[in-house]
């Protein structure tokens, strides 16, 4: 099984090929949307390249999948606003995100701004583990 450091290297290569952002300048904690200026259109392309590389299926919403799954029947979001239970689950399962930013009233659109390279690497790892 691949280690997260190896996946990080692959992710950096894919991002460089897809967006032209130099891989040497990419750090694990960089946020995709703010720091690397990747938008959802770029992310779709990046996910396609990672899917091809690892022969797995990836969706943008998969990044928060584990936090959602953990809640079972408890609602994760209502009308795009993440519930208190959803926030708690995100804190546990997306520990790479600064917990100070995971506050009540956070919307799904705001959450995507917090996704980092680490989130992406974790997603690939989870999929490789067969989640």
């Amino acid at each position, binding site marked *: 099984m691949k280690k997260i450091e190896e996946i990080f290297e692959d992710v950096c290569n894919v991002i460089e*090929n*897809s*967006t*032209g952002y130099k891989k040497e300048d990419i750090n694990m904690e960089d946020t995709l949307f703010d720091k690397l200026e990747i*938008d*959802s*259109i*770029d992310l*779709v*392309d990046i*996910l*396609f390249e990672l*899917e091809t590389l690892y022969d797995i299926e990836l*969706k*943008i*919403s998969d990044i928060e999948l584990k936090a959602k799954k953990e809640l079972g029947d408890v609602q994760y*979001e209502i009308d*795009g606003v993440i519930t208190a239970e959803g926030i708690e689950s995100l804190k546990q399962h997306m520990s790479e995100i600064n917990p100070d930013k995971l506050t009540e009233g956070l919307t*799904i*659109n705001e959450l*995507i701004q917090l996704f980092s390279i680490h989130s992406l690497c974790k997603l690939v790892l989870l999929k490789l583990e067969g989640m």
Partner: protein
Amino acid sequence: MRISIVGAYGFTGKIICEEFNKINYSYSIYGRNINALNELKKGNSNIKNSKSINLRIIGDVNYLIENSDVIINCAGPFTEESYLLVKNVAKSGKIYLDISGEIGFIKNSRDYLQEISVKNKSLIIHGCAFESLVSDLILQSLSEKNKIKSVKTFYKFNQKKVSPGTRITMKLSKYRESFKVKNNQWLNCDLKKDLIQINNGNNSKEVAVPYPLPEVAFSKWNFEVNKAESFLIIDENDSKYMTNRKSVEGEALEELEKLRLKKYKGPELKDRMSQKCELFVNINQESIHPKTLEAEIKDTYLLTAKAIVLTVEKILKKNPNLYGIVSPGQIFNGNPLKIIQKLGVKLNHQSKFRIKN
């Protein structure tokens, strides 16, 4: 006839050139990048001339029009680059085709240039590309018997990799208005309010999000429909990340210049070969029950290239005596289903696709 291809070295432009080479047509190529033009011209005897032009410069636009009888424009994004060209073609009595999927650009063209292009016997065909030609042809065929009252088109792609031009156009869409037709009037779309729950005949949780394409305009022009909308089918969870237009149009040019430096890559041949697009056309006609037709489209880039070649052939062999800003389906008035078949599109009249109330 002097055929000119603008943006010939682009992803779809190259495939169009290959299709013209197959039938041994001669053409000239234009674009901004002289090196890319020279590279494409090397060893290709079908290419008569090549010239570097900038569609924002009137002198270049006039040169192109003066040296062409048929202009095929593949140089998107069209909103930012091509209005000057279309405006001057409208006055010229020449023939113009493009592969634009940008509804605002197409709407403006018809709103402001229809009269002048008819007066000068110019023929301007927008959206001669897979996403709108197929649905336009389906509607042309169905309208022969019963008047069309409303239409919704839905697209589902099995693959996420798009051409560099499409990627740039999609990234710039945040600067643009998106349209639908209601009560035969233009209205803006709202990503949340206009989202539709669907049942695609499988168990996946999918929704249809507004994604305005040229056929919305074509349906308004050709059939004076009461309602017309187009959608993209995506995963329900992914739809929650989508937001309405936020930016102002003036910023688009600045971003375009930055994006051009990025040198995006399009799908490789193997990806193109495995590409599949499902198109669902939900239609409401007078005197009959609403129904949904399903079309399966493979390799949308090749289909676009074939559509361009078929359209040019049709115009050159049989002058359609058609002027103004028209939809691509209008060129094939009389035998639309034959063209759908020629393009290799499979039609299914018994679709399991349903719109949930």
